[in-house]
């Protein structure tokens, strides 16, 4: 029993230490960039644009597929159920609640974790084993500013754009697909949708996605950086970045949704 409690305590302490170390890591990355002069930012742009291309542009086919499937299912189910209840007017609210506020951010984050979180952790882990990170230090190039910060920023920009794209494809494409099975007039569909969407929904979606991006790419970079030199640590870092990334993103999205729900009730 004591051993169990002891292990539990140690595990909690380790997680707490990791969380503090992650926060310090994010702070140092930001500080390293703030210390650079504007003209020295040029090499960072290359890493930033590469990250946006890989995380944002290259994920479009997969995001399109998932958004179309999700949108279709949600539109079909909501129109069918609400027709039975005779309250089709609230369809807009349901779509906004489920797609823009909840499913858009979480599904986009999952795709980004699976594609880019693993890639970043693996790439940085491999860079550690090949002495590339150390080589940057020997050239007085701060890896946190050159390698980490552009990846975090590129990840945030990509995930925000991808989530916006997800919402558009899910709502428009979902309607087109669903309309084949359960016809709803275009004017009615977009009218109820326009009535339901508010600036708050976009603000919430933007906040959720931006913060998820920060979480995903900070964790992935942090895990990659923790590789101490042995190649077998690279897949471990990659796995950890996925597991910790999913847990953190789901916990954050859940907490924020609960907070907004409770706040709306009071």
């Amino acid at each position: 029993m004591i051993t169990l409690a002891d292990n539990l305590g140690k595990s909690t302490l380790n997680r707490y230490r990791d969380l503090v170390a992650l926060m310090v890591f994010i702070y140092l990355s930001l500080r390293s960039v703030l210390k650079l002069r504007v003209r020295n930012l040029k090499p960072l742009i290359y890493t930033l644009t590469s990250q946006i291309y890989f995380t944002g542009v290259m994920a479009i086919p997969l995001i399109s597929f998932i958004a179309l499937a999700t949108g279709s299912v949600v539109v079909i189910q909501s129109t069918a159920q609400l027709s039975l209840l005779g309250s089709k007017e609230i369809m807009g609210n349901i779509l906004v609640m489920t797609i823009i506020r909840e499913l858009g951010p979480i599904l986009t984050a999952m795709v980004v974790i699976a594609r880019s979180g693993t890639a970043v952790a693996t790439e940085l882990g491999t860079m550690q084993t090949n002495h590339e990170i150390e080589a940057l230090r020997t050239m007085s190039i701060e890896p946190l500013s050159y390698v980490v910060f552009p990846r975090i920023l590129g990840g945030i920009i990509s995930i925000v754009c991808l989530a916006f794209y997800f919402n558009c494809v899910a709502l428009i494409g979902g309607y087109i697909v669903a309309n084949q099975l359960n016809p709803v007039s275009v004017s009615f569909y977009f009218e109820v949708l326009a009535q339901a969407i508010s600036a708050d929904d976009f603000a919430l979606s933007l906040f959720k996605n931006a913060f998820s991006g920060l979480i995903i790419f900070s964790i992935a970079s942090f895990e990659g950086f923790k590789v101490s030199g042995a190649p077998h640590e690279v897949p471990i870092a990659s796995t950890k970045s996925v597991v910790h990334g999913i847990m953190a993103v789901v916990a954050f999205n859940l907490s924020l949704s609960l907070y907004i729900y409770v706040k709306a009730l009071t």
Partner: protein
Amino acid sequence: MKRVDIKSIELKNLGFSYGADAVLQNVNFIPQEGEIYFLQGPRGSGKRTLLKLLLGIHAPTQGEYLINGELMNHLSHDQFDRFRLNIGYAFDVGGLINNHTIYENFKILLDYHDFKEEEHFSYIVSLLAKFKIDHLKHLRPSFVSTGVRKAAAILRALALKPQVLILNNPTQGLSPEHVPQLIQLIEEHKEKHNLKFVIIASDDWRLCNQLNGKIHLLHATPTEISA
């Protein structure tokens, strides 16, 4: 950032430990300007650690590391930058950035430190041409041979025309035809580009003789002997 002119390097009773394991103890090394030093010693005698101490990657845990009489022990990594920009370093294995081409591996150094003048960029091309690898400059390191990678890593150490050159096992993995060019390049940098201190960790006696190098022996620490 402005580079500091390096006039002298002194290591006095220098020591370094990884936790409780002492890797270096009481190292006294004062390289003289114009001389080429070969660090030699048994495996685990701390040659690579000493090179990292000289580069300011590690801080000594005992003794003094002085450049121009200024104590380096407590300088942060950033504070050491003004000295490090005048120190060229090449790893024994690896060190090139794999998602950059050979040329970009040099260019990043110039871009990051804001060396804008065209002469720096043309100098890089001339360095690559001396080793006859300039036609491979737009390839990534994984697409060229080990010998080319090694040559590129050594040439990158010379890209900013440093006053201190530190090489770790330069001939290990280097194509035999590049060795005379390496010797010629070091001599040329000493004569024309103000290269003052050359420190090489290598057991290559031929290279040592060809460069007229002085040997500095490192001894295994008591921890390693008992292990």
